[in-house]
């Protein structure tokens, strides 16, 4: 499964959810969906905006982990 490590990057950059949401142009609710691993997909444009706002690479935010079932 793909794990979204947004919390880690936000803590490193000392950025709040509200600030990040407004910078990338999504609602806090959607950002929360992303942070809580509930998102089914992320658009490249959104990923681009996140990386721009947090000054990081996609790999810093997205991580692949083996599913327990697999």
């Amino acid at each position, binding site marked *: 499964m793909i794990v979204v490590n947004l919390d880690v990057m936000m803590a490193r950059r000392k950025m709040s959810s509200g600030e990040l949401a407004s910078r990338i142009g*999504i609602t806090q609710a*959607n*950002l929360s*969906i*992303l942070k809580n691993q*509930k*998102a*089914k*997909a*992320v*658009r490249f444009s*959104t990923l681009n905006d996140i990386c721009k706002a947090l000054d990081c690479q996609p790999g810093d935010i997205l991580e692949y982990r083996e599913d327990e079932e697999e």
Partner: protein
Amino acid sequence: MADKEEKRYSSGVIRISKLATIVFIALVVMADIGGYFIAKYVTYCWIEKFDIMSLVLTTVVFYVATVCGYVVLFSVYKLLSNMEKDIVFDVCNTRLMGYITMGLIAAGIACACETFTWPGAIFLSVVAWFIALIVLCVKTAFDKAIAMKDEMDLTI
């Protein structure tokens, strides 16, 4: 402008459908009230069977079919009410379609039991099961649509 017209058209269709459902429910209620007499007429005049077992079977099948009819018609009415409120691709609607399918299958089984008295009742069963199949197909399509909608809603 075209959007408004389309909305007016679809809400008109839903309103007419709800009215038709109410009419059908009223007919089923009337059938329930006069059920024994209708069953008696069908057994003696249509099927021309004069034994008590045939009358009992026809009456039981008739009332079971009306119960199934209530389940189906109330589910259809609830489904139409949901659609009127713009609740379309929702789990509650697929659940209602499930009830409609089961009601139709049960009605078909009841009609199949009537074949002991009147072999022609098998055609009613086949019609009921055919409609159940169509509703099941629509339910499957709705299930897929709900899954796709969830995927879209959870795409950030």
